[in-house]
């Protein structure tokens, strides 16, 4: 089970999120003080026994108001400086770094995650789950092919939009190992609410292990049931949209299923990844996630059992 506040801007797990949180606390302090002062003066002004107005009083009032305005301007300038400095701090690093390059593409309503690698066979493709090693800068290239989405992992950084026809990027780094949650923050249609991704921050060793496993194609299935399931998946309806590396299934419109079992959730964070949810999901996706692009494919009971059995071998 995931920890409390695994999707919160106030519990930073990396330098970027940390400096933004710092800025937040600073601004909160300033604003609380200002608000307190204004409200106190207001209450005093309303309830004070009023004096007879004379020119003298007006002049002193003018002085007070002018001072207050001047102070406001100064405070705002301070906020501007703090904001710009934070902006620099959370931007792309100036010095030379060896970042981990990830390309995240938003679809209605899931995330395609591709780890770039100088040698093409090392490229790893997964979905709705992002693994990051502790302490290494990550350069996320963002793209969208249908509508505008926005990648937001509050514990690591602010959000950045994915815009069709444009390339955007997001630099982040994670220092605290753990499992965090990100979510689409730009309204993108029917299932905008169910477009989340899991972010796993782990030690470099653990990351390398995971990466190596992800590179592998799917294992051929052994039992008759799983073989039946493989037939259905790779020759049947599933393969038009999903790909399972190492088989004939090469569909692109849907998430890559090669290592489905290595992920924590199904349907972009809609369901936990386990047998029963998986069965429910395959049986009637439109009930679980109304409007999702995955159709009910009308499998018989034993067909479904076979498919689930096969999918469970994809670890």
């Amino acid at each position, binding site marked *: 089970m995931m920890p409390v506040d695994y999707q919160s801007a106030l519990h930073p797990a990396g330098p970027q999120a940390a400096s933004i949180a710092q800025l937040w606390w600073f601004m909160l302090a300033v604003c609380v003080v200002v608000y307190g002062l204004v409200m106190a003066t207001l209450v005093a002004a309303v309830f004070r026994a009023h004096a007879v107005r004379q020119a003298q009083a007006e002049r002193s009032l003018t002085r007070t108001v002018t001072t207050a305005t001047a102070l406001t301007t100064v405070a705002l300038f301070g906020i501007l400086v703090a904001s710009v400095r934070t902006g620099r701090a959370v931007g792309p690093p100036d010095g030379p770094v060896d970042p981990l390059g990830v390309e995240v593409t938003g679809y209605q309503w899931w995330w395609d995650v591709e780890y770039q690698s100088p040698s093409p066979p090392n490229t790893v493709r997964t979905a709705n789950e992002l693994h990051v090693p502790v302490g290494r800068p990550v350069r996320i290239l963002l793209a969208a092919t249908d509508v505008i989405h926005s990648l937001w992992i509050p514990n690591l950084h602010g959000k950045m939009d994915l815009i*069709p026809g444009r390339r955007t990027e997001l630099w982040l780094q994670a220092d605290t190992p753990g499992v965090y949650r990100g979510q689409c923050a730009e309204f993108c249609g*029917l299932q905008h609410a169910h477009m989340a991704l899991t972010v796993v921050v782990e030690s470099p060793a653990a990351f390398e292990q995971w990466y190596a496993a992800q590179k592998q194609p799917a294992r051929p299935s052994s039992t008759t049931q799983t073989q039946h399931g493989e037939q259905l998946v790779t*020759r*049947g*309806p599933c*393969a*038009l*949209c999903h790909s399972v590396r190492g088989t004939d299934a090469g569909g692109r*419109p849907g998430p890559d299923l090669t290592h489905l079992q290595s992920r924590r959730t199904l349907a972009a964070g809609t369901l936990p990844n386990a047998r029963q949810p998986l069965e429910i999901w395959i049986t009637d996706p*439109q*009930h679980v996630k*109304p*409007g*999702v*692009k995955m*159709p*009910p*494919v*009308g499998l018989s009971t034993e067909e479904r059992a076979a498919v689930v059995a096969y999918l469970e071998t994809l670890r």
Partner: protein
Amino acid sequence: MTTARWLPVWLLLVASVACERETRRYRELPASASRPGAIAISELEPGGRTPRTPVLSPYQENAYGIAEGKRLYSAYNCNGCHAQGGGGIGPALMDEKWLYGSEPDQIYSSIAQGRPNGMPAFGSRVPAQQLWQLVAYVQALSVQVPRDAAPSRSDDLNGHAAEAQLDIKVPRMTGHR
């Protein structure tokens, strides 16, 4: 006052039409969207013609269904052979010529059962609901659907006008490099 008396009737009419046009029909597999039974691939039958019973295309008046069909048309790579309806390896879908019939159920079986000379059978891979959505889109390509349910242009490189405008043929100008 007669108009006033007819108003509710008229409104109901519009309502029914509008609802059919706009409903996002993702939850249900429409009753009529089952696979039609054995469908003659050719009109030639022993013992002369029997009048064919028309099968309704469940999505042909539903904007959402047609749009889904449009998405699948490229997702399932139909445009690989038929292009954007203009045809290529496969026959054009925008013109009036139909090799295997233009009735919804005929289009359905063309996709489901495949056709000689290269059209594969998708029946075993594409669920009925999506097949019907594809049928609706193919009908849209040949302007057989209501204009206010037809999809408009796509957000991609397209030489062709939006499906909704297919019947306003604008002459291309001699200015292309």
